[in-house]
């Protein structure tokens, strides 16, 4: 190739980089052969203690559920995972059809009309939903539950930052953990509200019936419901009680937790608003011979065409994780999903009643109904200390709901507890024993 180009060294192809801009060595060390890399990385990974070494009660937006081997087998097909965004639809019908099925599934689960082909994760999907609401409704304030996880609040604050929008927190009832609907009424009456987000289950794990009343209070103000997809196998589709947008985190369908990523942002809205919606969308059409075919569509909303007037800057999304989502749901089936949610809820109830019997622990902290997770509040000691004592007994007991940033306000030593599908009666009993020992130890040292 050098000869064809009439040069003797490849360095001659870099004469356009001025000398003053050149660098010396990077200083990243030498390369390694594959077996050595495998050994080195395995040594590093062995310093991790994977969830399988523990009785696992960690949940929240990221979950560690068993995924049938068929799911990873399909996701590992390199025709899928080594492909790019389907810019040439004729060559990419496979992925386009997968994404169309994925969109259709989120439409069925959410009860809305149109789903996009995925966003980065549930939190960024909520952020995009905030901006979407502002495009379809005037105002400067967005209402969010005070019970929303701190991470999601922080992400939403960042999405609100650019257009200088304000987040207003709606307090929750201290006994039930449910949204204070009177506070919503007051905020709406005060005006300037362009949207509201509520989550199902909420940040404490509870299913708040009041969410179904929000649309009646909000009227024309758009309602965003952030819903756990598994819960929607047994819960009413939010589109049926007035949600204008339904977002969610989809990682739990077929993907391992992978220390927090990749995740999957779900987004659905109504037909009349689709042209204001973010992200890529696949549509059905036909080819020159009249055969049904699929292509990315409504692209005039997008950054590569509309540039600074685009509805979002989304370019890369989470297509492969969307594939995992739809293959998981189809392998498990709607009945299997509902049964899984039922069994997780049963485990959560069993554990909550065992923990609730321990002096020094309030479990569940709130009275509203719940599915697979609930909040515990410690009356003595800190969440960090409690969880650390449990960990030493091989129990991952959940995670602290407190914002870890210095100076952040705290509302007690609260822990979100979510029995994973791998725990059974033995592990639940183990948690209860370890919890009793932990609070007793704190009591002695206090």
């Amino acid at each position, binding site marked *: 190739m050098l000869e064809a180009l009439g040069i003797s060294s*490849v360095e001659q*192809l870099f004469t*356009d980089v001025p000398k003053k801009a*050149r*660098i010396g060595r990077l200083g990243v060390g*030498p390369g390694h052969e*594959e077996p050595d890399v*495998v050994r080195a990385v395995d040594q590093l*990974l062995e310093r*991790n*203690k*994977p969830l399988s070494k523990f009785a696992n009660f960690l949940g*929240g937006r990221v979950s*560690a559920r068993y995924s049938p081997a*068929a799911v990873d087998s399909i996701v*590992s097909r390199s*025709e*899928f*995972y080594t*492909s*790019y965004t389907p810019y*040439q639809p004729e060559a*990419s019908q496979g*992925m386009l059809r997968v994404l*169309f099925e994925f*969109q259709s599934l989120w439409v*069925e689960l959410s009860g809305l009309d*149109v789903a996009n082909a995925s966003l*980065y994760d549930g939190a960024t999907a909520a952020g995009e939903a905030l901006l979407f609401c502002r495009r379809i409704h005037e105002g400067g304030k967005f209402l969010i539950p005070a019970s929303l996880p701190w*991470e999601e609040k922080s*992400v939403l604050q*960042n999405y609100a930052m*650019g257009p200088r929008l304000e987040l207003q927190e709606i307090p929750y009832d201290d006994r039930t953990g449910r949204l204070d609907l009177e506070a919503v009424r007051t905020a709406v009456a005060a005006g300037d509200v362009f949207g509201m987000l509520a989550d199902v289950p909420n940040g404490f794990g509870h299913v708040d019936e009041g969410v179904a009343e929000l649309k009646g209070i909000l009227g024309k103000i758009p309602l965003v419901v952030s819903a756990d997809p598994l819960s929607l196998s*047994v*819960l*009413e589709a939010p589109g049926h009680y007035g949600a204008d947008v339904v977002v969610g985190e989809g990682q739990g369908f077929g993907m*391992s937790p*992978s*220390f*927090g*990523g990749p995740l999957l942002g779900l987004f659905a809205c109504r037909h009349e608003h689709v042209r204001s919606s973010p992200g890529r969308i696949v549509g*059905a059409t*036909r080819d*020159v011979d009249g*055969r049904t075919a699929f292509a990315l*569509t*409504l692209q005039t909303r*997008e950054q590569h065409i509309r540039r600074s*007037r685009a509805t979002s*800057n989304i*370019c*890369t999304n*989470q*297509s*492969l*994780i969307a594939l995992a989502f739809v293959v998981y749901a189809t392998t498990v089936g*709607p009945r299997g999903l509902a049964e899984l949610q*039922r069994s997780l*809820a049963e485990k959560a109830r069993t554990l909550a009643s065992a923990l609730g019997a321990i002096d020094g622990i309030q479990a569940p902290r709130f009275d509203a109904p719940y599915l697979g997770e609930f909040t515990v509040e410690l009356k003595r000691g800190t969440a960090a200390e409690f*969880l650390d004592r449990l960990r030493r007994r091989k129990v991952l007991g959940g995670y602290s709901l407190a914002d870890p940033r210095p100076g952040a306000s705290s509302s007690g030593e609260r822990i979100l507890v979510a029995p994973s599908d791998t725990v059974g009666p033995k592990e639940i009993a183990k948690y209860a024993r370890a919890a009793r020992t932990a609070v007793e130890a704190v009591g002695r040292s206090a």
Partner: protein
Amino acid sequence: MTFRQARWDEPAVWDLAPPRAGDAPPEIPGIPDRMRRKEAVRWPELGELEVVRHYTRLSQMNFGIDTVPYALGSCTMKYNPKVSELLARRPGAADMHPYQPEATAQGALEVIWRLEKILARVTGLSEVSLQPGAGAHGEWAALLMVRAYFRDRGELDQRTEVLLPDTAHGTNPASAMMAGFSTREIASKEGCVDLDALRSAVSDKTACFMLTNPNTAGLFESDILEIAEIVHGAGGTLYYDGANLNAILGVTHPGRMGFDVAHLNLHKTFATPHGGGGPGAGVLAAGEKLGPYLPVPRIVKNGRKFRFDYDRPKSIGKIKTAYGNFGLDLRAFVFALTHGEEGLNHVSRRAVLNSNYLGLKMGKYLPRPFRTLVKHEFVLSGVPLKAKGVRTLDLAKRLLDEGVHAPTIYFPALVEESLMIELPETESKRELDGYIAAFERAVTDTPENLHAAPRNLAVGRIDEVLAAREPRLSWKDLRAHPAKVETPGPVPPAP
């Protein structure tokens, strides 16, 4: 090369076993009636083999790097090493919850910490975060950092403008808008930033100049040091879009060029798979000025222990759940360990050699609008084809019939009928010559054949106008408009 893509007459998943009107899902104690789903989710119940066969057949109607070369410019579609797939599925990587205690995740934290250190070297910017979900997410977060920086200096109300060249990726202006800035495009001169135009555009309103170098025309912005001086002289910040970093690994870096903040796409330069559109993995790298504003948590090392550090008062906070796409970060780490200094140096040299060789050979058939010394990619114009009634779109479709992926088309917009071509370092000379031969056959084919392409794929030319005019975006839409659904017609004989 003779090529035929699989053409399965495969029904949609719901037509494999049409779901009946469902029974109610099981009742869960305590859940109020109003919140209960009355009918099971409308989705098919299938056996595992049916599911596997369905999605395997769909996979056979999809291009991927493992089967074809992907000449998409600015997408850097390089080989995704298999060893990374293996390691990312180890329990110590996959079976890890982001909120498990630090003490149980020391290996994961060290992977992140060490990759950040490597990327700090590669970018010449000392502070790195792996939190962004993808490149565009990093762009937006970087501009929020710029925003916070000017807020702290009391200049936020004044510095409202983001400048960018007309060659910028569409994500740049879209990210700037989302971060609350207005944008102003600067016309290029011979494919590069026009210094005079930049000088007259900068002012005390300038918050940031966003630049890709090499740019989307494949040209290295040789005036980069002057550009940095002009932008900094006006009190603005300089942003590096790392989409095209592959061309300059070990040659120069954003830090040396004078950039204050950068994003990288690990799914491009560091070979993590792009999965049909995502996941990606974004990186934010910043120098001293903007480093304190990076998202939390940062990962720090105390003695031999790694921990999350949330004590960053100037941080913009969180931009995403957890710490980024760890599964992809691990793959990028494997790529970096495998390559090392020499390997990374080789990547840029070979990528640039490939591009110049392709440019030389393919430039015989279509004009090259800019100078011929290019970096990782180059641009051709399909304008001469218009004389025979052929457009760049037809050429792209005809290339697909050769069993190769088409270049990026109609971008950059400053070139009429443009094709942007990039075949990265993992493509051999034999593959390049194969691509050139395919291109020759395509570009010299008759207008009739070019218009009729593609004919060797699962479907023929797709009516994208219809897709947008009568949007049918889900199974629900197909049910609502059954009359409009076309039944698959007879498969036309292959030519």
